[in-house]
């Protein structure tokens, strides 16, 4: 068993940027271990993605023909199984994305490969491959290994590795497509409705305010700030309870969950359990609060101790 296999991801006819990052991770590991790098792509006409994958450090590109171009968990599972059988890699890198969530675990549970998800560090030592991921809501790092596993499948956190920029000249080979009878059918993509309605669950960027705003008239400047920043304005319960913002903007246990949010800026929110229930899972939380010990800082990635009006005003000058 040797070699590193990367499985690319594409959507609506375009490779997703995370594919380049996985290749970056694999090429770096090749430098450290000497294992060859193979990049696979699965699709209706997979050759069309091959050109963009001819990157420095890649040794071989593998294509697997599928009956549909859109993701199907069973086609992907069977195809990656066929790829592993054909090239016997010691390490398989998949992007830690929603599509992968749908097929990686079923694949490894059945075939007994080593497995870890949402990995942001990979190394190899005397015990074999070692992966680093986070635990307890990102508060600790966890190093895992895979005793006795000949092939290890890792899903890699997007953004954790730099993509490869330079072109290379790998060979291209087709791997025979396995026969699959899909038991689910992709019907189409839907874009989020571009309506004016407040959409806390669907918003990727939320700027949220809490008790720190003090009085109703002050809410206006944060509405303006959110508009200027291109963020959806959210709030904690007391703000909605006072009638200063609609209930639809309330984040937390009694309100909405910031389900799709990637960047959450909490201004003047101390961080009650109630509020944090609706947003603590967000990747990047920025907290602005006068109290350096406010609970919100315990879940934030970035903290600003300061006056929200000062910071807000100054921020406005940058947007």
């Amino acid at each position, binding site marked *: 068993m040797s070699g590193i296999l990367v499985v690319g991801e594409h959507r609506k006819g375009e490779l997703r940027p995370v594919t380049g990052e996985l290749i970056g991770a694999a090429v770096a590991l090749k430098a450290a271990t000497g294992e060859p790098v193979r990049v696979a792509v699965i699709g209706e006409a997979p050759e069309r993605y091959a050109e963009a994958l001819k990157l420095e450090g890649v040794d071989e590109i593998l294509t697997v023909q599928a009956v549909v171009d859109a993701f199907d968990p069973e086609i992907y599972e069977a195809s990656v199984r066929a790829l592993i059988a054909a090239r016997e890699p010691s390490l398989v890198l998949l992007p830690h994305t929603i599509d992968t969530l749908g097929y990686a675990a079923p694949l490894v549970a059945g075939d007994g490969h080593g497995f870890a998800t949402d990995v942001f560090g990979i190394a190899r030592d005397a015990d074999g491959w070692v992966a680093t991921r986070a635990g307890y809501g990102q508060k600790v790092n966890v190093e895992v290994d895979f005793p006795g596993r000949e092939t290890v499948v890792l899903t890699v956190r997007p953004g954790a590795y730099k993509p490869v920029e330079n072109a290379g000249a790998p060979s291209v080979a087709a791997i025979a497509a396995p026969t699959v009878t899909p038991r689910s059918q992709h019907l189409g993509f839907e874009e989020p409705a571009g309506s004016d309605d407040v959409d806390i669950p669907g918003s990727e960027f939320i700027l949220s305010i809490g008790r720190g705003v003090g009085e109703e008239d002050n809410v206006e400047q944060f509405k303006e700030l959110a508009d200027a920043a291109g963020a959806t304005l959210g709030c904690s319960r007391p703000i909605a*309870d006072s*009638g200063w913002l609609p*209930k639809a903007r309330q984040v937390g246990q009694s309100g909405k969950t910031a389900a799709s949010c990637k960047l959450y800026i909490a201004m003047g929110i*101390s961080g009650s359990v109630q509020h944090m229930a609706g947003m603590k899972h967000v990747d990047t939380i920025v907290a602005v609060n006068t*109290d*350096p010990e406010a609970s919100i800082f315990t879940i934030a990635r970035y903290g600003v101790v300061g006056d929200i009006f000062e910071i807000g005003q100054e921020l406005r000058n940058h947007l």
Partner: protein
Amino acid sequence: MTRSPSSSPRSVAASQRHWLELLRRARASDEPFSAAALYPHASEQQRRCLEPRLFGARRDRLLLASAAFVAPAVLERLACLVDDATQRTRIARNPAAPAEALTRLWCDGARTSLAPLLARHPNTPRAILAELGEAAADLDTLCALCENTGSSSDVLATVEQRRIPVLQRLLAVNLATDGATLMALWRATDEEAVRAQILLHDHCPDTLLQTLPASPLERRCLARHARTPAALLARLAGDADVAVRRAATANPATPIAAVVASCFDTDEAVRRTVAARRDLSVTLAACLADDVDDWVRRVLARNPACPTYLLERASADPVLEVRRSVARHPACPASLLDRLSRDAATWVQAAVAYRDDLPLVVLRRLARSTDVDVLAGVGRNPMTSTSRLARLAVHECADVRRAVILNRQTPRAILRVLRQDPYPLHRALAVDHPNLTDADRWRMREDPDVQVRYRVFHHFAWRLGAAADPVPADAMQHEHHPHPAQEKMETI
């Protein structure tokens, strides 16, 4: 509220019985918080009985050490019992930790690792802060001192003499830094960020506020200062930099005559700022009333200085938020409120529903809405009838039910229904409602939610603990604040 509702022998006996029951329940509880609620009001002997439940397990000591809602007495005692560094760290971070607890940590000799936390804590005694200011060698501790508004100006002056750039920033921000230190800072640095912050400081020496600085950031800060001379502010209101113009326009010390031009500024941010001025004349308000930027119009419509006749016009504005602003104007006439209560947008109707000065006919109309924002406003409105509140108290939307609990006029009978609400936060809020009786609260002592129980125990602790014992010194504070701050309770 008084601590002992009646001093008849029978009620004293009942109070004692209740108190003993709470003590028993707290000791048998599977969490330490009920005991923590009773602890400050318990006698010495009772405290000793509660202590195994409170402090016996390390897990519970850790929980209590970081609980910001528990009484100082609990943390003070805990500070004497802690047996590892993490518990100490948690207490030192706990905003509720009293001076005695922090002193204890300081004296325990764990000075090095806890120094930054003690230096930052608002309750750390000044003497310890002074010692830290003299002796501290590490940057973290010095930063913490400079961030602590409890640091005295003398301590800050001492730290200033170290001339460390990072600290200079913090000193320029700290409200406690005095004029002399700021002057020393000014002379010691030519860094724009620090100087700008000095110009913004309340204690900024007058001499620094007399000249026009070169950098836009410094001009912006000067433009915001209350003591900047009017003539200078007038010049800043015409500055080439938008952010400076905005700052000067927002400054109440800038004479209104100097911001007339701001009404016609090419930058809408400046016009929005002038529209918010409380000393806006009727003429200037009229200039802004038809501004193309709807933010200008919405700010103006909220401004108490905006005359009624302009509100009339704004109430027909095509932009919803402008109409909503009219409905939030403190002097919005009843006729306009009536019109806005029939607005096509429910968010405008909701703005009306939250007003305490509504004609009953308007309130009744709003009560027929199906929109949760409008109904929540009606539910919170002190004029809403009991029968209407009773219906809203069983509304399927939790926000509407909570509005009824938050309404100080909601009668006991309705609160007794809400006391059973599935949402624990609602039950917790109901405990604190002035119209709920102690008999009602007593029946909540077995609530499955820890936060609700804590409030019930806390409530009875200061009432019954006194009945069983002499009034402890801190009970007087409860006379004025019978209930703890609500947001703290939510953090359990």
